[in-house]
């Protein structure tokens, strides 16, 4: 990337939020060690150093993790389930996800989250809850292959970019009222019938099966 010049380096830089976490967490750690060795702190310091600071540090940690978990690298770190998706998105632009990714139609930093979070605040909240379920499944090794969506894909994620795009509006099928009504009623989705599924079928079976298939 560097040989192309600084214009081609993504402007996203991780925030410095972690410094704030350290500022809050380190006194709590020192106080905990002190109590472990000496038995107690002065009462006036106990409530702040041993109770408030650890809780505030966790609140800051939650905010930090919420933000960082939007990143593609975070999703890809669950190796067994996500690495095939990750790999095909990076290397195979014949798929819908790869096509969007390689053309820069979605952010390279938050590509997974952009499409899978749904639309609006409720979409964010649903995505975070789903993320927690995925973390638990990964920790317990209880993923159910082949991976599949629990419900139909939220086409508002597609329409967020495409609804007002001229090429999208120019397609005759998109202008058919019957199709529009079926899409808005969620009786049909963008993928599966008209457009191919976003990720290749073999990527839904986990890293081991994907490696064998390739």
């Amino acid at each position, binding site marked *: 990337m560097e040989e192309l010049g600084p214009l081609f380096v993504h402007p996203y830089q991780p925030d410095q939020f*972690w410094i704030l*976490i*350290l500022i809050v*967490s380190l006194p*709590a*750690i020192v*106080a*905990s*060690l002190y*109590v*472990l060795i000496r*038995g*107690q702190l002065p*009462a006036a310091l*106990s*409530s702040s150093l*041993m*109770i408030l600071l*650890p*809780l505030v*540090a*966790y609140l800051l*940690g939650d905010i*930090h*993790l919420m933000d*960082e*978990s939007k*990143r593609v*690298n*975070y999703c890809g*770190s*669950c*190796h067994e389930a996500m690495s095939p998706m990750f790999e095909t998105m990076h290397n195979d632009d014949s798929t819908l996800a790869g096509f969007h990714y390689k053309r820069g139609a979605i952010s390279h930093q938050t590509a997974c989250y952009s499409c899978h979070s749904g639309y609006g605040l409720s979409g964010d909240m649903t995505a975070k809850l789903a993320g*927690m379920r995925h*973390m*638990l499944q*990964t*920790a317990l090794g209880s993923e159910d292959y082949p991976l599949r969506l629990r419900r139909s894909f939220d086409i508002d994620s597609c329409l967020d970019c495409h609804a007002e795009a001229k090429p999208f509006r120019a397609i005759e099928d998109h202008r058919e009222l019957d199709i529009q009504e079926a899409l808005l009623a969620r009786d049909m989705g963008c993928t599966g019938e008209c457009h191919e599924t976003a990720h290749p079928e073999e990527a839904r079976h986990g890293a081991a099966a994907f490696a064998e298939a390739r």
Partner: protein
Amino acid sequence: MARFAALLILVSQLLLLRIVFDTTGPPSTWFTFVGHPLVAAGAVLGIWALTRRLIREAHEHKMAEREDH
């Protein structure tokens, strides 16, 4: 009690520090599912230990005042 609370808080903060330096899958799983219960339990035990201590100190102070009189 205070030492046990301190131990829980210490472990929870170490789990927090892991996600500061590495926010990938396994550290975030530990932080979310182990760290939060630990910090909550540590805070509750800390409040409990502090309350008992304050009551004991108040009682001792009262007894000392009575003895002075």
